[in-house]
């Protein structure tokens, strides 16, 4: 997807136009100023404390094995991780290695920031080490496209349901297997007198990641566009799904304040004993344990199935090489070492995520206790994989800004679920059309 660098297009004047930000220009023309030493490899990670530390340890181990290469882990506040990476890329000072989420991959590839690793991959010892789902998620997020490798999965995170076990035991209930069971469960768990609510709604930024899988469950499909490139997410089944989600808030099964809850708030609401249920990644397990939960108060379960499908919300953190990398050889050496199962499995254990390598699948550490449902969700290939069109340039702003606002308008009763989805579908149909005009009718589709 990287276009060839064309000197004549619009780069006719000095620095002001270097703002075109292509890291190619940045690296080749000015990349050496303020550059790192010959054998320093910089790794950008906005993954948060625990994982940053795990990666730093791996970097230190690597340094012992290869004293001539120094891997420097750049730590970034999570809240500004993406903005910082964008600044580095646009400003012509990109890191050598980047850890990205699946969501960012398409954007950064479009910026020309990601290198193609295919030729290296062909001769790599561990190239068949990854699981089917791991590879599928790479394809879904455009890390692998048409056999071209742009990144490989460092780990897989998946969603499972967390419940307050004590509340379930009190009421003699079990985790729900279907959405309708789940809805009944939430109603039973809600008790405003005791300041208890069934569910911690994510009404603000990121709410998309909770309600979109429900739409997929109700409609049975993870497609977004029909063959005429019109967005179909406002069809009757999808609307039913969104209404289901909306009703949870309208019927008071989540605190009124959850309208403005993001990640932090809803996790906090769970372990502080306000809400009975959330769906989250395995990394939230240690957070809960740190805040005083244990096997008697916490139980995890697979996601309930909707009327037409059971959906696995998986996402991956991908390791990629930046196209502006200074010392490609040293960078690739570290890359090849760190992505081997011998490194990835201990990393996953240390950070409470699931590895995307086949060797890790049967490891008892990932198949017991709290992690069992997660492994089930991450390894069951029969489940519908959640998907969204990350190749569209508008997607970032769509998810972060537009969707948040529209969903909040719906929760505030300013518009119906149908209206909400109509607006979103309209926007996306236009975006898709623009894309098709530029790139032709063969758009990426769910795997």
């Amino acid at each position, binding site marked *: 997807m990287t276009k060839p660098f064309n000197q004549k297009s619009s780069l006719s004047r000095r620095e002001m136009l270097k*703002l075109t930000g292509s890291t190619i220009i940045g690296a080749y023309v000015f990349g050496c*100023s*303020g550059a790192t030493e010959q054998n320093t490899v910089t790794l950008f990670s906005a993954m948060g404390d625990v994982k940053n530390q795990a990666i730093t340890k791996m970097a230190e181990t690597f340094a012992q094995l290869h004293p001539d290469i120094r891997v*420097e882990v*750049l730590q970034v506040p999570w809240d500004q991780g993406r903005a910082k990476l964008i*600044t580095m890329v*646009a*400003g012509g000072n990109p890191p050598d290695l980047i850890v990205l989420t699946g969501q960012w991959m398409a954007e950064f590839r479009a910026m020309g920031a990601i290198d193609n690793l295919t030729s290296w991959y062909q001769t790599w010892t561990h190239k068949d080490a990854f699981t089917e789902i791991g590879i599928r998620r790479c394809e879904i997020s455009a890390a692998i496209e048409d056999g071209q490798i742009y990144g490989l999965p460092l780990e897989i995170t998946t969603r499972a349901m967390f419940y307050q076990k004590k509340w379930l035991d009190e009421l003699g209930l079990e985790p729900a297997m279907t959405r309708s069971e789940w809805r009944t469960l939430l109603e039973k768990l809600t008790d405003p007198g005791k300041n208890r609510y069934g569910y911690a709604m994510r009404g603000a930024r990121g709410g998309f990641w909770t309600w979109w899988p429900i739409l997929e469950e109700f409609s049975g499909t993870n497609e977004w566009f029909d063959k005429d490139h019109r967005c179909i997410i406002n069809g009757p089944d999808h609307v039913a799904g969104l209404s289901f989600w909306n009703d949870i808030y309208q019927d008071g099964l989540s605190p009124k304040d959850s309208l403005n809850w993001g*990640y932090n708030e809803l996790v*906090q609401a769970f372990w502080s004993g306000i809400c009975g249920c959330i769906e989250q990644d395995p990394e939230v397990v240690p957070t809960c344990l740190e805040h005083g939960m244990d096997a008697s108060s916490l139980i995890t379960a697979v996601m309930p199935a909707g009327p037409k499908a059971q959906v696995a919300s998986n996402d991956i953190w991908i390791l990629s090489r930046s196209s502006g990398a200074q010392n490609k050889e040293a960078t690739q050496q570290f890359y090849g070492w760190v992505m081997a199962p011998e490194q990835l499995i201990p990393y996953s254990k240390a950070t409470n995520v699931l590895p995307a390598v086949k060797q890790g699948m049967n490891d008892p550490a990932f198949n017991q206790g709290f992690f069992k449902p997660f492994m089930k969700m991450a390894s069951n290939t029969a489940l519908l994989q959640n998907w969204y069109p990350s190749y569209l340039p508008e997607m970032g702003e769509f998810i972060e800004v537009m969707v948040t606002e529209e969903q909040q308008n719906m929760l505030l009763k300013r518009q119906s679920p149908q209206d909400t989805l109509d607006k979103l579908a309209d926007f996306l149909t236009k975006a898709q059309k623009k894309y098709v005009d530029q790139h032709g009718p063969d758009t990426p589709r769910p795997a």
Partner: protein
Amino acid sequence: MIKQTPTTRVIQLLGLSAFFVFVTFPLYWMIVTSFTPEQDLFTWPLRYFPVAPTLENYTVTLLRTDIPRYFANSLIVASLASACTLTVAILGGYALARYTFRGKQVTLLIFLATQMMPIVVLIVPLFITFRMLGLLNTLYSLMIVYTVLNIPFCTMMMQGFFAGVPAELEEAAMVDGCNRFGAIVRVAVPLTRPGLIATFLFAFIGAWNELLFAVMFLNTDANFTLPVGLYMFISKYDIHWGRMMAGATLALIPALVVFGFVQRYMVRGLALGAVKG
């Protein structure tokens, strides 16, 4: 002056108390939170004084994180940036106070205009500039940025202070053989000492607390300044409230100490500067 009757006195004291409570309560709450163990933060009804105060937040923050180093970095950056700002402001402020010249209005307009563009749009161009200068990921880049951001307001402050000092004294010094520069340094500047402190302090606090440029320009955590370090306490899943408040309290202490000690001079300095003939 308002005549002091008992009623007015009561009203005044009420007013002063109200302000005091309003200003200090959030700070009090911040400090209380810093001494509260994490699990006690999420209980209802709230407790206004920690039942089981703990030093754990402070020990973790001081020992296990790099907060002390960030502190040092902030100190270096803020001090040097303010010193530079002050120097530039002294020279410029003197010029604006003592001379009438054609560019004067334009200069003041330019100063104002630089405050008008949101720094968010300036991040990438400045990033590129510092990259080309090879200063990315150094404290120098921040020093320069903070200096530049503070020059307009600080120069205008110094202008006011110099205006409050009669020009005759410098004239006298120059008659005695000083050149202009010597007159500035040896005569005018010492007379504005409270003003110097005020200006320095203003620039210092601005630099001490700045966050966005620090996040964007600094890569390795050895170089982080304090605001960036505190920002790291917000992670994807968790806000470590207790530790963040502990860090915040620590960040506040030097600012408070210096500020508290010096604000007296600052007010005096500004008062001097406000005198008009």
